[in-house]
């Protein structure tokens, strides 16, 4: 007789037209365990989650909860059976109160007793240490608190299995820690937590076990403490370690003293305080700092994405005026926005249409790009960037996050920019694609393109950038080059200890 787990998924199969998304995957979850589910995009982790929550029906296999086999028909059905999910995007209603968000859709009967619900909600909130009032509108809470309210709802529904799907991607460090405290608290109450994330550090900070998927198959289940981070990465991407380390060697390469491409003095916008900035031809530099330190706002000022309020800008030594994105594009500057859903992709348009978008804008309305020309461009970049898409006419919205990012990258590369600004290009995408994008950045730099790179992961910045501009509280507080480019020094500068 096998050991009874809280949740057992055995030999799960899921087929989509033309693809075997899950191929005989096993997954087990114990009581009071935080179990990280890891894998690249397309590895099948979100498919597995969706099978478990009833969004998809599995084609084969068996799910047992507390030893009892069960079939899950819909997300609501999953919730009733004790499997709750908290998604990356908050799936609550901002126009209702916290209390209503905890209880709505659950009660029976005609009348809603607000007062008693509010009282119960306050009890739950204080039990879980969530800093919110039950009568507050959800929309007036911070994202982190909204996420916790979603968790509180799940807990109050007596969930046995709690799935957290990328819960930390929009939270800052402090909020992440608060969330982790809550997760540990739930764990001690016996809730089994499945934690899906791209942040390796967070996996090691909070999880007990790790299950790795790759290409729809199970790679293995490991105890977190027995699996070094570097091995986890190699298991996820299925590549050997040398390839990983070969990338870090390029970091030694220094930009020779080439001419300055772009120079700004006292540049400011409605969102950014005045700052000086310069980049040489073929240089990769980066802005770093905590969330909200002004790093994104600064590069947006360079691109003219927010209203520029002052400062002088020179490109190739000649003064120019950049007050809106089109100006920047005409001067050979490309910008990959932080929020690709909002500022970047147009989900309904095809891969091809998204790729030629920026070029079309540059050419102007009256010089249309012919169909055959645009098809040729699209095919070329799909190949060069290894974009995984069914065809060039597939709507971008149906691609995975990493591939969407590559489409936007292709869009800018097509305009042959001299200077490319990448704001969080690797957020929310898998390790393999991350690596590809990092390599691409370095290759572009070799070809003479200047790149400004922003990432929340300092390690990634260290690997790609030869110069780091450190920001704190919307001010530039330091510039690091050469030997100073290391984690300790960056942390010190961010924290305020001078070199």
């Amino acid at each position: 007789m096998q050991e009874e787990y809280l949740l057992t998924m055995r030999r799960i199969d899921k087929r989509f037209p033309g693809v075997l998304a899950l191929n005989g995957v096993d997954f087990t979850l114990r009581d009071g365990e935080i179990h990280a589910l890891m894998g690249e995009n397309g590895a099948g982790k979100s498919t597995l989650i969706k099978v478990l929550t009833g969004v998809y029906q599995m084609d084969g296999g068996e799910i047992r909860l507390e030893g009892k086999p069960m079939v899950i028909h819909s997300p609501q059905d999953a919730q009733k059976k004790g499997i709750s999910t908290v998604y990356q995007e908050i799936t609550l209603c901002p126009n209702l109160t916290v209390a209503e968000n905890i209880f709505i859709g659950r009660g029976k009967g005609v009348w809603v007793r607000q007062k008693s619900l509010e009282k119960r909600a306050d009890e739950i909130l204080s039990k879980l240490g969530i800093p919110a009032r039950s009568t507050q509108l959800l929309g007036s809470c911070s994202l982190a608190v909204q996420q916790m309210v979603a968790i509180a709802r799940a807990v109050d529904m007596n969930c046995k299995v709690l799935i957290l799907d990328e819960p930390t991607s929009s939270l800052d460090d402090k909020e992440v820690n608060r969330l982790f405290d809550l997760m540990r608290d739930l764990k001690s109450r016996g809730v089994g937590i499945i934690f899906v994330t791209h942040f390796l550090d967070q996996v090691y900070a909070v999880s007990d076990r790790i299950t790795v998927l790759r290409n729809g198959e199970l790679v293995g289940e490991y105890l977190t403490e027995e699996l070094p981070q570097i091995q986890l990465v190699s298991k996820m991407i299925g590549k050997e370690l040398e390839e990983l380390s070969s990338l870090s060697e390029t970091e030694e390469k220094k930009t020779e003293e080439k001419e300055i491409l772009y120079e700004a003095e006292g540049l400011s916008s409605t969102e950014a305080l005045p700052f000086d900035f310069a980049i040489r031809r073929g240089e990769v530099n980066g802005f770093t700092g905590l969330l909200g330190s002004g790093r994104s706002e600064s590069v947006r000022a360079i691109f003219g994405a927010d209203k520029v309020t002052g400062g002088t800008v020179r490109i190739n030594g000649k003064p120019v005026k950049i007050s809106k994105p089109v100006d920047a594009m005409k001067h050979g500057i490309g910008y990959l926005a932080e929020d690709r859903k909002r500022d970047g992709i147009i989900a309904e348009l095809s891969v091809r249409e998204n790729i030629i978008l920026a070029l079309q804008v540059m050419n102007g309305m009256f010089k249309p790009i012919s169909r055959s020309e645009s098809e040729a461009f699209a095919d070329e970049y799909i190949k060069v960037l290894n974009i995984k898409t069914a065809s060039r006419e597939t709507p971008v919205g149906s691609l995975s996050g990493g591939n969407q990012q590559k489409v936007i990258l292709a869009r800018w590369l097509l305009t042959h920019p001299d200077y490319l600004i990448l704001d969080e290009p690797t957020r929310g995408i898998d390790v393999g694609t991350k690596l590809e994008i990092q390599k691409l950045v370095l290759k572009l730099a070799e070809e003479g393109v200047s790149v400004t790179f922003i990432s929340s992961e300092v390690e990634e910045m260290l690997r790609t950038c030869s110069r780091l501009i450190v920001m704190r509280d919307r001010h530039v507080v330091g510039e690091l080059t050469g030997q100073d480019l290391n984690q300790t020094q960056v942390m010190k500068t961010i924290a305020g200890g001078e070199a």
Partner: protein
Amino acid sequence: MKHFSFLKRKEPLNDTQLLMAITIGIFLIMYVSAIMLFGGGFNHAQQIFDMLNDNASLIIVSCGLTIVMIGGGIDISVGAVTSLTVMSCVLYLNRGGNIYVSILLALGIGLAFGLVQGFLISYLEIQPFIVTLAGMFFARGMTTILSVNPQKAAHKTFNALRAKKIEISWLGYKARNGNLVPARIELGVLVALVCVIFVFLMLRYIRMGRNTYAMGGNQQSALMLGINVKRTRFMTYVLSGLLSGIAGYVFMLHTGAGNATNAAGMEMNAIASSIIGGTLLTGGVGNVIGTFFGTLSLTTIKKIVVTSGLNDPWWQSITTGGMLCFFILLQSVVLGKRSKKKNT
């Protein structure tokens, strides 16, 4: 008792309450300035009762539309359904129909439109604008088929019911000849007030009402929260249809005649009332008390226009348009200021 004060802490007004407060405030300002400018008629309570008498059916229709709009939808068939109800009931009564059956007929027509439109929109997922546009044309066409010529109700019991008015003497005024003219309220106004109160209670305390807010706030979330979104949406259109039927009967009580052009443009006035009352077209925010005062504001401004001697109908349209713009501008400024404050 520290905990107690924490729990009792008063929340700041939410968007719905704030917009409603603005509407009521502006209505009061408008009315008071009308009294000061024109005196006379505006001084009498009857003025307000007249506004209610004339607009009882609009108030009822607006209630229904507010529900639909809070749920994130739109229903532009309401005016035509009202008109069809009036015509059908008048014809029925004139053929010697029973008064109770005529009431059922009115409810039935409204309900039928609500059911069909609600089904098409919620379960077959067709755009509400298209469905109710089709419903509007259909109902208008049906009205004309029933009778091209105006039909006057000639039913004894009905006309007796029509003539029934509630008289409040202490709110009356002395006419020139010295006789006391008591304030008169039509029965339709009572029906309208009952509808307002019912819809208010429903949106506030009944599960389906809360679900409507959730659905309008974020449909996807509402679904994930386990709300039966399809049924909730269906119900909003059913209620809107039903209220259009009731409004039709009230309309008939007021005019006593059916006419193919009855309630022309009422749907637009109802949308305007809801918006002025603080209901957002995007859904999730709104309140029927606000809608009530929205209708009153709309009526007051029209009255002011007429009283100032601009009797031509286009002046009313122009001022209605101007007022709608003003309110929407005000809403977006106020809400914009709030969200900015929240972010800093």
